[in-house]
Each structure stands twice: as C-alpha cells, then as structure tokens.
C-alpha cells in the first residue's frame, strides 16, 4: 500500500510540475519577414505589435529579417492575426511560429549566430 501511495505521489508531482511549466512558460511568436530593409519603413510593424494588449515586448531585427513578439502571461495571439499585422504594415511573412522563448532569449540566439558567422 505504501508503495502504491509513493507511486501516486510521484505521478502527481510530475504532473503538477509539467502543468506548472506549461502554464508559466514564456511564449513568443518568432517570424521571418520579407522586404524589411529600412527602420523608418518598418516602424509600422513595431508600433502595431506594441499596441497589442497581449504584447509584452517586441523585437525587430533588420539584418536577420526577424520579428518577434513576446506575449504576456495567459495571453494569446493567433498566427493569422500576427500575419495580418505584418501585411498591413506592408511586408510578407515567410515563416512564423510559436516558440517557448522570451524576446531576450531570441535576441541572444541571434547574437550568438552572428558572432559565429
């Protein structure tokens, strides 16, 4: 009996732990955007994304053609809505995906990739 209780406790702990991780994980949308060659022209992207209530932080990288928006906890944004914002700003999304990373982590990754080139 004691053995079974220990097993149940372990399963519960693991379950709660994974629930906790998914509930509080940082979620961002990371996209590759085509045509983004000028900061003045691309301002519309950052302005529109920053205006979203779901948006915690926005990052635009001209050289790597990357746009990323970090979402606030418990907030969601569909890829369709994200793509429409980019298109209304005058650009095309080549690829967009949800990533479990903060904007700071995405920036760091790009910096590391740059230094390796």
């Amino acid at each position, binding site marked *: 009996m004691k053995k079974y209780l220990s097993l149940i406790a372990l399963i519960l702990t693991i379950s709660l732990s994974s629930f906790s991780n998914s509930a509080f994980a940082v979620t961002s949308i990371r996209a590759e955007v*085509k*045509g983004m060659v000028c*900061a*003045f022209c691309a301002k519309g992207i950052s302005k529109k994304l920053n205006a979203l209530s779901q948006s915690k932080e926005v990052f635009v990288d*001209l050289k790597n053609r990357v746009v990323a928006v970090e979402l606030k906890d418990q907030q969601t944004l569909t890829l369709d809505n994200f793509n429409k914002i980019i298109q209304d700003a*005058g650009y095309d999304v080549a690829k967009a995906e949800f990533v479990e990373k903060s904007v700071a982590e995405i920036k760091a990754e790009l910096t590391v990739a740059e230094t390796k080139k």
Partner: protein
Amino acid sequence: MSKNTSLGAALMLFALETNAGPMGFKDSWMIMGDFSPNWREAFINYALTPLDALGVSATYMRSDDETKTRQLGEITYTRLLKRWNMPDAQANLWFAGGVGIINGDDFDGAKAMVTPGIQFDYETRRIYFAVTERLYRAKDLNHDYSSGRAGFSFYETSFEETQPWFILEARRMNGLSDKTEITPMLRLINQNYFIEAGVNNSSQFRFNFMYIF
C-alpha cells in the same frame, strides 16, 4: 540663371514626396517638410488602407530673382500599385497624384492643376534606386517632371540605430528649365524620422524631412 530656370528648379522639388516613400503604414499619418530658398512645402497624408492614402499639401515657390512666385494647394492621392517583398530587398510601384489650384504672379487668376505620376523604387539595406515620372498640367502650363535617385548606405545598422546614406539625385522639369538639377545629399534614417540635406548644383541648400505617426 534665368527666371524660368530658377522656377523650374524650384518646381522640380514639388514632387519630392514621390521620391522618399509617399505614404506610411495603414492608419498612419505622414508629415513631410521640404525647405530651400525657393521652396517651402508642408504635406500630410493619412493611410486609409495598406495601399491607399489621402492628403493635402501647401507649397510656396519662388524664382531666384524673386520676381516670380507661385502657390499651390492640392488634395493628393497615393496608391501602392505593386510591392515586391524579397528576402533582402523591396521594390515598389506607386501612383501619386493630386488635384489643386495654382496661383502665380506671372499669369492672371487661379488655375486648376492635376499632377498624376508614377514611381518605381528598389531598396536593400545597402543600396537605393528610384525613378519618377510625373505630369504637372494646368491650362497653358506643362511642367512634366522626371527624376532619378541612387545611393548607398555607409554601413548596416540595427532597427534602433540611425543609418546614414549618400543619395545622388538628378531631375528635370519640362517647360521651365533646360537644366538638370543634381543634388548630392546625406540621408539619415531612423525608425522615427527620415531627413535629407544637401546642396544642389545651383549652390542652393536643401533640407527635407518625413515623420510618421
């Protein structure tokens, strides 16, 4: 320099907005200013859609000897006809035109003027190229205009940094000037502003700016 040449050089500046990106993103306002001894212009438009913008402009023009002046008030319409978004470049085909009233001290009364034009531009983070053709037509007035611009950035910058460019512009105005105006300019681009300054081959200082909000 003749009066007509001076006035022609001034009128060429009239189409500046088509050379520097004639509209912003959807729901944005664009303000533009263009200042030189013979030219003072204020222009504003609003992007109703990602492709269309409506605006107004007011322009004062003066010949070098200050004997001729003209004032033009105009309602403008800008349309992005086609955009090509490439991984590291962007190209655009624009329509930009207006309808307004022009007054001058070298003719009587006010005249209705129409200014339809097209522009093609191509830009990467390091090079820029644009050609513009625009008609300036009123009764007994024909100031059709052509321009070409090319330039390069000194280095790449991040989104938050200011990027300096060298731009060389050549342009002509039919019916008012036989001279081709050549203007080398320093352009500074930031996410919040766009400014250009230079001196043309008539030794006239030029300063242009744009702001989007």
